[in-house]
């Protein structure tokens, strides 16, 4: 996997954050939803914080607190209605849809609660897909995809489609898909919610290994205590507000 991840960033413009720079900076970021009937729902209220790079950061809070909305904003798949947001050193406000999409493609990866694998693609093709979007040469794609599937232990299942894989195997494919392009930032929304405890622990260990080996920044939205126990930095959200942040290492 090491060779795959080190090769992934070659030959393309990619934003990186140094160890001293935060990977995400939020300054008075707010998000208000308009429900098309004149009612406005405030999901995030003027939040300001930095997420340090190369950490296992957790956004925690009760259901409906705004965790997922915050994760969506950080992942640049939603736009803040107020404030300034900087991801991987880039001010993302005001970028065109194509520019923000390309930015996501290069720098950000997602791991979803429901795996969100393409049902018509095999495990191998699902993992290779982000590299196709980066227009990498076929040989490089093959090398990185194979290395990543080996690394998550799914090479023997590479020809299987998602419906032929267990929940844990699907999430391993999802992790491989997220990491194959060696992103700067990986966002995971409740990645262990649909897994049993044992499998969840395996997935956490896998992500932890990748994060430690390659200094990728992980941001989780979760209330899984098992996952929270691995947090290096924790942001507690309640009713759309940041109520607490903890640096677990310092603690």
């Amino acid at each position, binding site marked *: 996997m090491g060779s795959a991840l080190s090769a992934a960033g070659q030959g393309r413009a990619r934003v990186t954050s140094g160890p001293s720079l935060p990977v995400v900076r939020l300054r008075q970021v707010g998000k208000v939803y308009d429900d098309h009937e004149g009612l406005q729902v405030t999901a995030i209220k003027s939040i300001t914080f930095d997420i340090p790079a190369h950490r296992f950061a957790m956004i925690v809070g009760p259901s409906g607190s705004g965790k997922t909305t915050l994760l*969506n904003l950080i*992942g640049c*798949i*939603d736009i803040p209605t107020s404030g300034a947001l900087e991801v991987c050193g880039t001010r993302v406000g005001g970028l065109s*849809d*194509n520019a923000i*999409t*390309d930015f*996501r*493609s*290069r720098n950000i*990866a*997602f791991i*979803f609660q429901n795996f*969100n694998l*393409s*049902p*018509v*693609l095999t495990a191998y*093709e699902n993992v290779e*897909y*982000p590299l*196709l*979007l*980066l227009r990498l040469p076929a040989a490089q794609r093959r090398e990185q995809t194979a290395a990543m599937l080996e690394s998550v232990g799914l090479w023997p299942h590479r020809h299987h489609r998602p419906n032929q894989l267990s929940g844990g195997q699907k999430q391993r494919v999802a992790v491989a*898909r997220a990491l194959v392009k060696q992103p700067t930032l990986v966002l995971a929304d409740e990645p262990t919610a649909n897994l049993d405890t044992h499998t969840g622990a395996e997935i956490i260990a896998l992500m932890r290994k990748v994060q430690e080996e390659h200094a990728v920044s992980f941001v989780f939205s979760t209330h899984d205590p098992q996952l929270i126990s691995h947090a290096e930095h924790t942001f507690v959200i309640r009713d759309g507000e940041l109520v607490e942040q903890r640096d677990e290492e310092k603690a």
Partner: protein
Amino acid sequence: MLFKIAFRNIFRNKRRSLMTLLAVGVGAVAIILFGEFVGFITAAMETGAARTVGHLTVYRSGYFDYGAGNPAAFGIADYQGVIRLISEDPEIKPKLNVITPTVSLAGIAGNFEIGASKTFFGTGFVPSDRDRMLRWDERDIFRYFKHNPSTMRDDDETTGVVGVGLARILGLCEKLGLTDCPPRPQLPTAANDSEPEAPDIAALAQAEREAAGAHASGEPRLDLLAATASGAPNVMSLLISGAERQGARELDDNFVAMHFSLAQKLLYGRGEHKAVAIVIQLHHTKDLSAVRARLHTLFAEHKLDLEVRDWIERQPFFKQAIDMFGSIFFFISVIMGVIVLFTVVNTMGMSVMERTNEIGTVRALGVRRGGIRRLFVIEGSLLGAFGATFGVVVGQTLAVLFNRTGMTWMPPGNSVRVPLQVLTTGVAPLLICVWLGLVLAASVAALVPANRAARFKVVDALRHV
């Protein structure tokens, strides 16, 4: 990868995709079968016209509009010279199949043995030239039709051929051995019917026959009365060697074909023998415009007061019929196109709805709006392509099988049933156009749901269950 994903997505909901493919396929079959039927009708009409009236006809200027009232004035005197000029022209010669003089006339045909007479339209031609013209079949349309060589000969100007209808009307069925004539009814006898209806014409005809040395009785004969160019009545006796069924009943009941020389004698009497027209049949219809243009140049160069008309000008009904079939074909194609359009819109719309979460996922991974649009348009195009390919194969197979059923039909204005066929050769342009048209319709149809999918907000799409 985009094609791979699109291809596999088509087979996710097999039943829905199958119904869409069938809709596209049935549309293709309908368009192909009707298009090939129209193609056959068009080709058959063109071939029929080229066989009977040739591709081009040369007249003395003004004949086409006014000449029938005065064929002597509008005849082509030096027709042999004109034929030589045309047939020896280096540009026209290789394109020429037949060039032959003709005479057209009208008059009264009588079988005075039974006191029957009837107006007729006559055509005088060189029998061997006409035979060659009738064998022309550039597109192999009449391969299923048996061609009977003419019973007329170049060296016998006394014989002619009539339409089956005229033979029936003038009581020649028995003598000609025609089996499909209904029995002739006995006419009620009136007191003043003891005398022949036209004793003068009958006597004139008898005198003509005697002068010609034709005394044999029991032969099928008609006496033809026509006005000469100078207005004097002229009578000729014609030995009928056979009856040929003409396509339209009006023509069948009036048709008399005779030797060119006899027609000249009948029309021009003792005056200068001319040709009313010079008929030109080409090897290939595509050369028509070029030859026509060359004829204009030739006539201008040689200061010949001649005009050229093509087969459509001579038989405008053919063009109108072809146009009518073309309009129906267009109408059917549009209806089928609309059905395909709505079917694909519906199928792709449901697909977009079911895959909203997937759309959100790939957008989050970095697929642009344009990529989503392309994916769904490719899916629609593939659906169209598979359906159209299926339709083309089935349509063409059905067309070949249909031609073997031996079905017949009675075209409008015809007096005889003809084989109901569809054109199965030389239809590649039709098949390609149908295929492309349906794929295009499916692609355009897919654009609507594809645009909707491309406009989804990523977060909304990801939230969709």
